[in-house]
C-alpha cells in the first residue's frame, strides 16, 4: 500500500524545515500559513515527518486520506 505525508495544518508554523529535506520537492508553504503536500509527488518516504520540529507530519496509507 502506498503512503503519503499528512500535515496538521492548524498547528503547523510554516517554518519550512520539511520543505528543505523533501527529496521530491513535494512540499510548498501555502502563503506562509502551513506546509502543503503535493499528492502527486509525495512518495511517503517520511523524511519530512522525521524533521518536523513540532512532529506535526504523519505518514499514512494513501487510502485513508
Amino acid at each position, binding site marked *: 500500500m502506498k503512503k503519503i505525508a499528512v500535515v496538521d495544518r492548524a498547528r503547523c508554523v*510554516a517554518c519550512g*524545515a520539511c520543505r528543505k529535506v523533501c527529496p521530491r520537492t513535494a512540499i510548498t508553504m501555502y502563503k*506562509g500559513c502551513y506546509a502543503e503536500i503535493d499528492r502527486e509527488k509525495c512518495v511517503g518516504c517520511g523524511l519530512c515527518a522525521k524533521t518536523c520540529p513540532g512532529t506535526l507530519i504523519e505518514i499514512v496509507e494513501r487510502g485513508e486520506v
Partner: protein
Amino acid sequence: MKQRHWYDYLWLWSLLYFALGFFNILFAWLGMIDFLVPLFIALIGGNKAFCNTYCGRGQLFQQLGGRWKWSRDVKAPRFLSSKWFRYGFLTFFMTMFGTMVFQTYLVASGGRNLTESIKLLWTIRVPWGWTYEAGTVADWVAQYSFGFYSVMLTSTIIGLALMILFKPRTWCTMCPMGTMTQMICKIKAKEKL
C-alpha cells in the same frame, strides 16, 4: 545531493554576528536585519520566505543538531507548538523587548546612565564593557546595542537548549519572529489565526 546556494550558508552569519558583538557591541545593530527583513517579507510578500530559506538561526540549529548530530532528535513536548504557548511566548518576548526599548529611551533622555553589560535569559547580568569605549556614539545607541545583543543571545541559548533536548529546529515552533510573521501571513491570506 541538492545543489547548495549562497543562502544555504547564512548560518555562518549567525555565528559571525555573535563574534562581532564580542569585540564591538555596536555591531549588535546589524541584528535589526534579522528583525525587520522577515517582517517586510511577510507584509509585502505574504510569505515566510525568511524562515523557510534565509534564517541563519534555523540553519545553525539544523547544521549543529541535524548534520553534526548535537541533538537527541526526539519529539518535543506538544505544548511547545500549541497556539496559547506560541502567542503567550510572543507576548512575553515583546514585553521584554519593549522594556529594553524603554531603557534605551531612559538613557536617551538622561534619566538613566549607560549600563555596559548584557542580560542573559532576562535575569543574568554579564559584564560586557570591553566591547565599547564610552563616548564613541550617543549613549542610547550603545545602550540599544547591549540590549539587542542580549535579546539575540538569549534566544539563541534557548534555541540551542531546545535543539539539544528535542529536534534540531524545535526553536522554530516557538520563535517569536516566526509566530509574528505567520500571524501577518494568516491575516493576509484570511486564514484562521
